[in-house]
Each structure stands twice: as structure tokens, then as C-alpha cells.
């Protein structure tokens, strides 16, 4: 059926003259991708699933022993791992909420005729074009208690953003919000400009208030695209590694991916870290699924 649904090849085209069929072309495009996907994604994924049930360590030549669910049991009983998960959840909520509020807010501001709109939008997009490591390094300087410009500008004296256990995680989240709000802004802007103008005109004729217009027209129509931005940002925030790793070494800001990195590449507990990676994968898939369900519901409306 799928073949029938495809657009048929133009008989005059060069490919047709060479005797290629639709099917040949389809395969030529799809097979390399599938092979690539299997070799670099599916195969390691399954292979590491196998490792997650063993005590394998990549740093030794010792054979891997099957240990059943011992790795999963050990991880789920480790209070440090649970604290890593709690920290990550807090980080995701703070960072994604911040990005949506700031990003959507800026998009609302930009969604009107103002001079130099294109230039302003482009400049606002700059943070997300930078490398995570670079952003981490220079925000570390900005946050510096002795000579950092943030304390100077806010008149905070010697406030220790990154070495204060209560503040460190928020400091990382603020940096993430600065970097990725433009992404949410860009998608929101696309959504906002797609809202038909006549709806606002109709609302104005009916004398609908600003808030009513926003919650009844703007938000519902932008919601699907905003949801996509949220899905992307949640997945990314869950995996955040570089920013937090560079900015601070506070245990109160040790995200689960940092713990995973240490377990896999400093301790070389390959089996155990595969299990942790699977636990993370299941959680991300679960969260994403909830979002996608919700997204579909929003779209149906």
C-alpha cells in the first residue's frame, strides 16, 4: 500500500531513463539510514542492555559475569542515586519553566510591528548558537564572587553563586534559561504568527479583555507548538551534563548524567552504568510519552 501512496516517478526524469524504479530510489535513500541506525544506535542499545545484567568492567580483561537484576537493585537502593534523581527533577522543572516563561514572554513582545524586529530576533538567538562548554566557562567567570560582573551589577557583594550548596543548582538553571529561552521564543514566535488575525478582530468586536483573549485565543492556538518546545527542552534538561559539570562541583548540583559519567568513565563500572543509563532511558521515554499524549489531545481540540 505504501508504495502505491508514493508519488510516481516522472517518466521523463533521468532516474527513470536509467531504469530506476520508485522502489529502487526509495531503498537507496532508506537502507543506508536504517543500516546506520542499527549499527550506531540499535545495536549498542541492545548490547548495553545485556551488559546491564552483568558485572562487566571495560577497564579489565576479566570476563563479564551474569548478575541478574543486582545492578538495578543496587542502584535503586543507593540513596546517592536517588538524591541525584531528585536534583535532576528539580533542575528540569526550574529550568524548563523558566525557559517557557522567558521565551514565551519575549515572543509575545516581539510579535508586533517594531523597528529592527529581524535584527533583534537574530541577536536574541545568539546564546543558543554558542557551545555549552563555552557558555559554562564564561558564566563561571560571570558568577565569580571576587570579580564576577553579576555580583557587581546586582550589588550582592561576595555572594557565592556556585559554591553555595543551596544556590548552585539554581545558578546552573539560570545559565540554562539564558541559553535556551531563545529556542522556546523562536518556536513560540512561529506559533504566534500563525494565529489568524481575524480571531483577534472578532474578539475586539466582542469587547473581550486582554486576559480573555490571551487564554482563549492565543494560548490554545500556540499550545501545540509550545508543547513541542517543552518536550525538546525537557529531554535536553534531563540529559544536561556539560553546563553543570563545568560550573560547579557541589553535590547539591550533581545531576544524574554527571553521576553516570563518573560511574562509567572514572570508576569503569560498565555493567552498573549501563543499568543506570537504562533507568534514565526508561524515565525519559516515560516522561516524553506523557507529553506526547497530551500534545495529541491538544491538537485534537
Amino acid at each position, binding site marked *: 500500500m505504501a508504495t502505491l501512496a508514493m508519488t510516481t516517478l516522472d517518466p521523463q526524469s533521468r532516474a527513470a531513463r536509467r531504469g530506476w524504479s520508485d522502489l529502487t530510489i526509495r531503498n537507496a535513500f532508506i537502507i543506508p539510514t536504517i543500516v546506520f541506525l542499527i549499527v550506531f544506535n540499535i545495536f549498542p542499545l541492545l548490547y548495553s542492555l545485556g551488559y546491564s545484567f552483568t558485572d562487566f*568492567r*571495560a*577497564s*579489565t*580483561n*576479566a570476563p563479564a559475569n551474569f548478575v541478574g537484576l543486582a545492578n538495578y537493585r543496587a542502584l535503586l537502593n543507593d540513596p*546517592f542515586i536517588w538524591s541525584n534523581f531528585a536534583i535532576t527533577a528539580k533542575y528540569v522543572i526550574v529550568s524548563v519553566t523558566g525557559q517557557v516563561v522567558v521565551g514565551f514572554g519575549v515572543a509575545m513582545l516581539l510579535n508586533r510591528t517594531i523597528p529592527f524586529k529581524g535584527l533583534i530576533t537574530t541577536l536574541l538567538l545568539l546564546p543558543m548558537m554558542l557551545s555549552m562548554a563555552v557558555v559554562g566557562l564564561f558564566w563561571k567567570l560571570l558568577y*565569580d*564572587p*571576587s570579580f564576577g560582573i553579576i555580583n557587581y551589577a546586582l550589588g550582592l557583594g*561576595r555572594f*557565592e*553563586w*556556585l*559554591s553555595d*550548596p543551596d544556590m548552585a543548582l539554581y545558578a546552573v538553571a539560570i545559565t540554562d534559561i539564558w541559553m535556551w529561552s531563545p529556542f522556546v521564543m523562536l518556536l513560540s514566535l512561529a506559533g504566534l504568527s500563525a494565529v489568524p488575525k481575524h480571531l483577534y478582530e472578532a474578539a475586539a468586536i466582542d469587547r473581550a479583555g486582554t486576559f480573555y483573549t490571551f487564554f482563549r485565543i492565543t494560548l490554545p492556538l500556540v499550545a501545540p507548538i509550545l508543547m513541542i518546545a517543552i518536550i525538546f527542552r525537557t529531554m535536553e534538561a534531563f540529559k544536561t551534563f556539560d553546563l553543570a*559539570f563545568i560550573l*560547579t*562541583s*557541589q*553535590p547539591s548540583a550533581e545531576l544524574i548524567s554527571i553521576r553516570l559519567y*563518573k560511574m562509567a*568513565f*572514572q*570508576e*569503569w*563500572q560498565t555493567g552498573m552504568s549501563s543499568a543506570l543509563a537504562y533507568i534514565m532511558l526508561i524515565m525519559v521515554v516515560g516522561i516524553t510519552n506523557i507529553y506526547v499524549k497530551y500534545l495529541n489531545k491538544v491538537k485534537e481540540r
Partner: protein
Amino acid sequence: MRIRVAGLVAGLAASLAYSTSAFAQELTIFWAEWDPANYLQELVNEYEAETGVKVTVETTPWQDFQTKAFTEFNAQGSAYDMVVGDSQWLGAASEAGHYVDLTEFFNKHNLGEVMAPATVKYYAEYPSGSGKFWAIPAEGDAVGWSYRKDWFEDPKEMEAFKAKYGYDLAPPKTWAEMRDIAEFFHRPDQNRYGIAIYTDNSYDGLVMGVENAIFSYGGELGDYATYEVDGIINSEENVKALEMYRELYGFTPPGWAKTFFVENNQAITENLAAMSMNYFAFFPALVNEASNPNAKSTGFFANPAGPGGAQFAALGGQGISVISYSENQEEAMKFLEWFIKDETQKRWAELGGYTASAKVLESPEFQNATPYNKAFYETMFKVKDFWATPEYAELLIQMNQRSYPYVTAGEGSAKEALDALAADWKATFEKYDRYKQ
């Protein structure tokens, strides 16, 4: 005719000699990216001039060093012939067969006596006391201290210090004196602070710092032969040592919670602290006026003694090992034979390398070469090191997890932190069946 034949033979020999150099042997040594690696490159250039064997020192930033080296080992790659690896790697690398057993080489050249005893024990031997050697001590290193001579020798400061503490202001002989001096110079309103210590918990920074206190307080991390830890790592001495470390943290510059060698040198160059802990390997930068505006007024001292008079320091530094997967092992062994010669070790020290050769270390020439060499010589005969078992990285991370919140945030008590650590370590050793042997 005879002359002709001789000429022919000579010509043949010459062409053979040339042809071998046309297939010139190459050796690659892997190390971290820092000044000593540049000095080593200079040294091995002389080896090339002598033998025609080209040796390259390949480097990677410290943060990746362990990961990159072990990734290459695990893949059994032959990219590197030798590695100047951390002392903690010995267990992991020897048990997994990544390193070539150098015991025979070691005994043949009597290296146990040629090199300073502590360097042999910690850079070369594994398991502890087994008489099996896996590396040749290459870059000796330990933790020492730098201080601001101009602050210490200011007559007004000296007077004020004596009035307050009842003894003369001088480089500290004990940890208690060091604490007083740190407190004395800690003046946040003047943007001056007492002391700079290691606090980075991402690898071995914080642990090295705490070890300095523990070892000088007469404590140990555990029994390296029996893996016994309970009552040793959480001993009374260690609790006191950790409490002292926490107290010193109170006299550090603001935001001093992720600091290692870079930041601790900055504490001196940026006029932040009166005293700063660091590896000797980073001291050349402090006597160089290009990298330290205070070079002329920077002094050095060895890690002070604890309350019981014990005086030890945490070991840094590395030994050079031959990698099992190298295709040039024979050539690498020849290189090592050259490397351990007295002249080579002397030249290594001249270039800025920290030789482990006892003879060179003891020579007055070496001790007077720089302001810190004497302190280095004294320290290298009283160093102790972290666990070198294959699971050392887990032990490190556990020690970070338990001690960091106490040191930097005052969470819980030193006793609680160390008791918990003893339990963690015991569980880890049980996991790897260390007690059954």
C-alpha cells in the same frame, strides 16, 4: 684488494645503518598536558639525537587523561608505546594486563635502590609489598606549600602576630601554626584571605588535600595489604585531621569550593591568599616572573607536621610504564634503559623534570637549583599515597561524597563522614572479594 673489500664492507655497513634509520623507529609516550610533559619532550629529543629513534610525547588535558588512557587500554590499542600514568592506576592497569611486567628489568638495574624508596613503593610496585614492579618512577611529585614572603616578613604583621599568638610569624612547622597564620591573614574586608586548599571533588583534588592532613596527623587510609579500613580511616587522628581541614576551609577566599592546582596557584599570583597548597610540579610557574607578578616574594615550605610530630605529604607524580599492546616493546625497553641512566636523570632534573633518582635528589646541585627543590627533596622521602587497587576510582568518589559536604558546607560531623566512608569502602572491598584472599 683487501682495502677494496674493507671499503665495500664499510659501505655495506653504512648503508645498512642508514637503511635502519630510514625505517626509523618511533616511540610514543602518553602523558597529561602540563609543563613536565614539555620538559620530557626536550629530554627525549636528545635520545633521538643519540640513537635516531624518534620519541613523541603526546598529551591530553588532565581532566581527560584517565578516561582517554583507559579507553585506549580497554580497546587494546597500540597508539601509545608507553604511558606516564598516575600511581593509582597501577592496580587497575596491571591486573587487567595493560602494563608490561617490569620486575625483571627493575631487579636487573637495581632500581629499588637507584630511585628514592617512596617513589618505588608507590609509583612502581603492585600489590603493595609483592616485589612486582610495573613502572619506572619518572616524575616525582608531592604536595607542598607556597607562601607570601612579603606578607610574612612585614615587620608590622610580625609584631601583630606575635602579640596575638605569642610566637614568631614564620612558615608553619605544624598544622596548628598553619591554622593560626591562616586565621591571622584572613581579612575579607581587605580582599586578603588566609589559605588556599584543594576542594575540587570531581577527581582526586579534595582527597589529596585531606590526605595531607590525615597523614601528618598520624592517620592512614586503611591497611593496603589486608584492606582493613574500619577503625583506620575513621580513627580519632583522622577525625581531627578532617576537622582541621574544615577549619582551614573557613579561611579560604570566597567561592573556594571547586579548586585544584590552577586556582591554588592563582591564589598566590592574584594576591588572594597568604599560603597555598599545591603540587611541586606547579611551582616552576610561581618562580617565573612572567606567570607570577609576586615571583620574587613567593617562598615555599614542606607540608607541616601534625600534633604528634608525624610529617607526611600526599603523593602526586607518575611512573612510566610500557603498554602491553605496543608493537615496539623492545624499543621501549631500550628507551627505559637510557632513561634510568644517572646522566639522563640529571639532565631530566636540569630541564625541570622532578627526577626520582635518589642520587640526583641528594646532590647539593639539585637542592640549590630552585627555591623549592630542597622542600621537594625533604618531602619525597616522606610521602604516602591513596589506594592503588583497581577499584580506586570508586573509593575516590566515595571519599568525595562523604567528605565534601562536611568540608565545604559543614554538613554533619567529621566523625559521621568518616564512619560512613569506612562502611562504603568496606562494602566496596566486599563487592570485589578483597577479604577472601
